[in-house]
């Protein structure tokens, strides 16, 4: 059934491809809805007023006369979901793969094998997601239909893949999507293996990362000294790779099991980096390590699965079986240990897989509140944009998802999605959009 309370009456309809109707009134009020603010207590029945893309009021406010009013009876308003790690809006770049392991760098050309860190191999730290966004990415619409209004999106190729951005999942021009850039630098442990250029091994990658950060520190010192006293000093050269590294407010490092947690957290501490670990499939094994290091982590919602086409005769180890069984208990274990985490859906095959994946974590002990928080306010806090995103609060960006039923439940229907105060409606009540990628 279609909820088009206002659509027919509206004079300024914008028809977007894919059957979505966006409306452009500057003031919208959702009245009489249950409001899950996330930052505060749930408001059983209240009004949310959106003006010029921002949240103007939450609670028992009266809709102003100029507002387009939506009857929220029976509906729940949540902050729009944020995908903490994705490639949304970057259709030309490879997607995150399901394993949480890095993507191979595509051979853009065939460069000479690197001889060391000075050749800056597998390094596009200067690449900015914010400058590469495209509204033609069909995944944007599919993600909105699943309740996402924002994402943190990254280039993902190579070792130093590039600078991510916090984006809204809609806009008139790509630049309008950007909320914060750079959001961080995405690093992987990718290497071509023995017989390729440097680095060709995991230890080569780690040594390379260490050298780059040492170089960046040296570069910054030299740059600052030169900026203060250019006269009479030999000028330092410009290094676009180190510029990218220096610009990143935080670094994303991959870690799926306890040995990797320690390895990456120690590296981060040694290099004095703000680290977000991503992956975390085996987080259930050692939440105390994460707690001890005060780690901040991004949990891959694509739980480990038996590889398709695996040899049915091959015997799997107890550890692999255990991991598949217990990986969804990671979020609950993190909550219990007091480790701050957010979910990322970027590795899911399609947005429709989101709710079942979250439900598995809830069956394994995660509360509904914590699940919602892990896809809203926690994401905003981990990326330092909680003053703008992540909750239903006055002054924040008007990104909301309005549902009939609790988020992530089996039969829940996403009724509306608001991005920057613009209303989007999934065309079909059951948003099971299959997107070919």
């Amino acid at each position, binding site marked *: 059934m279609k909820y088009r309370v206002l659509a027919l009456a509206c004079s300024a309809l914008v028809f977007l491809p894919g059957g979505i109707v966006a409306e452009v009134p500057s003031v919208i009020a959702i009245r009489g809805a249950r409001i899950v603010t996330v930052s505060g207590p749930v408001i059983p029945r209240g009004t949310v007023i959106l003006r010029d893309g921002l949240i103007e009021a939450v609670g028992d406010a009266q809709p102003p006369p100029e507002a387009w009013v939506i009857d929220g009876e029976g509906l729940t308003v949540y902050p729009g979901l944020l995908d903490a790690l994705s490639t949304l809006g970057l259709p030309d770049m490879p997607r995150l793969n399901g394993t949480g392991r890095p993507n191979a760098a595509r051979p853009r050309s065939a460069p000479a094998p690197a001889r060391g860190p000075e050749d800056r191999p597998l390094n596009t730290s200067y690449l900015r997601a914010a400058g590469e966004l495209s509204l033609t990415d069909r995944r944007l619409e599919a993600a909105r239909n699943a309740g996402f209004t924002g994402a943190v999106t990254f280039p993902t190729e190579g070792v130093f893949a590039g600078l991510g951005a916090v984006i809204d999942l809609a806009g008139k021009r790509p630049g309008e999507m950007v909320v914060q850039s750079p959001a961080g630098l995405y690093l992987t442990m990718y290497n071509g293996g023995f017989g390729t250029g440097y680095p*060709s*091994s995991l230890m080569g990658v780690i040594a390379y990362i260490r050298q780059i950060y040492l170089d960046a520190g040296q570069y910054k010192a030299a740059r600052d000294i030169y900026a203060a006293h250019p006269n009479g000093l030999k000028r330092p050269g410009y290094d676009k790779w180190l510029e990218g590294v220096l610009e990143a407010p935080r670094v994303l490092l991959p870690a799926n099991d306890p040995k990797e947690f320690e390895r990456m957290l120690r590296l981060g501490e040694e290099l004095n980096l703000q680290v977000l670990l991503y992956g975390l499939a085996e987080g259930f094994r050692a939440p105390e390590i994460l707690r001890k290091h005060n780690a901040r982590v991004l949990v891959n919602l694509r739980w480990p699965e038996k590889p398709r086409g695996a040899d049915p005769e091959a015997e799997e180890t107890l550890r692999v079986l*255990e991991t598949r069984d217990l990986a969804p208990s990671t979020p609950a274990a993190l909550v219990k240990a007091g480790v701050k985490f957010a979910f990322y859906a970027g590795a899911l095959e399609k947005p429709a897989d989101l709710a079942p994946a979250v439900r598995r974590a809830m069956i394994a002990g995660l509360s509904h509140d914590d699940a919602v928080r892990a896809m809203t306010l926690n994401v905003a806090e981990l990326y330092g944009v909680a003053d703008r995103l992540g909750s239903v609060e006055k002054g924040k960006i008007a990104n909301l998802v309005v549902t009939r039923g609790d988020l992530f439940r089996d039969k829940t229907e996403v009724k509306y999605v608001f991005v920057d105060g613009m209303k989007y409606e999934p065309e079909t009540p059951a948003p099971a959009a299959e997107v070919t990628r």
Partner: protein
Amino acid sequence: MTRLLWAALAASFTLPAAPPVVIQNARVLTVTRGSFTGAVLVKDGKIAEAAEKVMIPPGARVIDAGGQYLMPGIIDCHSHIAADSINEGAVSVSSMTGIEDVLNPDDISIYRALAGGVTTANILHGSANSIGGKCIVIKTRWGSAAEGLKFKGAMPGIKFALGENPKRRGMDDGPAGSRRNLRYPGTRMGVEDVIREAFTEAKAYQARWKEYEAGKARGETLIPPRRDLKLEPLVEVLEGKRFVHAHCYRADEILMLLRVADEFGFKIRTLQHVLEGYKVAREIAAHGAGASTFSDWWSYKVEAYDAIPYNAAIMVRKGVLVSLNSDSAELMRRLNTEAAKTMKYGGLTETEALSLITINPAKQLKIDDRVGSIEVGKDADLVLFDKHPLSSFAKVQKVFIDGALYFDRDRDLSERQLLQLKKKKLLEQEKQSAPQQKKQDRRPQ
């Protein structure tokens, strides 16, 4: 047997700080202080007493080892277990890399080595490079995190390699059907050149930093030189703060390396493999290098044709500090029988043979004040065999590291079934939750 089965099994052995342990009625092979039938008292992770009779302190755990043999934990001076990567083969000087960064405490080879009585191992970078990566000495503390594996206080090391491995990095197709070498060097001469060039650079780097430190001491405002992770370990070698473990085979390349080291003023701590060491044993002893070799491997590659099983014994007799290593996760489990071979080939005594896998590698790694023999005050790294460890029928019964029981054969055997059950349960659970597949009709035609 699956890897994780073992992991879970062995993890349960790791005990917290335990009460004193007395192992009594054992034949104690101290290696450095002769052998006797008696007891060893372990307290706070150290050997507190080793004598024919010891006082059993109250609350002590007493293990009756009647008819069994107690020896110091075996030390492997050349191993590649417990690491997630071994070779950074893209460059011929990969000294910026280090095993410490990639230690893998989940490697089942740790447990298997432990089950073979190995308690300490020198984990080396591979041999694809003239100058390889940094090494690390570990104890086989199965069940601990990477940090817990480290042998705290051991000297850091670095791997060098000579001969076939560093000169053959790989080939690709060159123009007109030719083949070309992908990486310099392609010859033994080239290997020498790479080492010389690296140390020449390292000396210049060392001088730059000294100059900077001197200027800073004079109160000048200076930008510090760029730190170079490739050259830093080589400066440490020059300053005697890092041991060189050099993979080598042929007599000529061994002499070459000793000459280069003498010229640049550093020492080769150990020659690894050193299959032609018997030809130049006097020169090796004169340099002060140790030799860590195989018992009886030969002819598996062209540079190993002149290897003889008497190598270890001849070098011992010529005054070289010799150890036997595994270089292999499989061989590592039975280094005791490797040591026994030197009695047949070269006539070493029992104690000399045992020294090759205990006190000698401990000296080579400069950890002989801590491990390598059963002496009061040393770490309680002990192995209990049911028969004399130099017998090929001997099986490891118990292994202690720092006084804690890390391997127990009886427990291992009894817990295997439990783990199998656990696994079976998980497999069935997964089968049931998997979507039902249509059964195909397979009626015979």
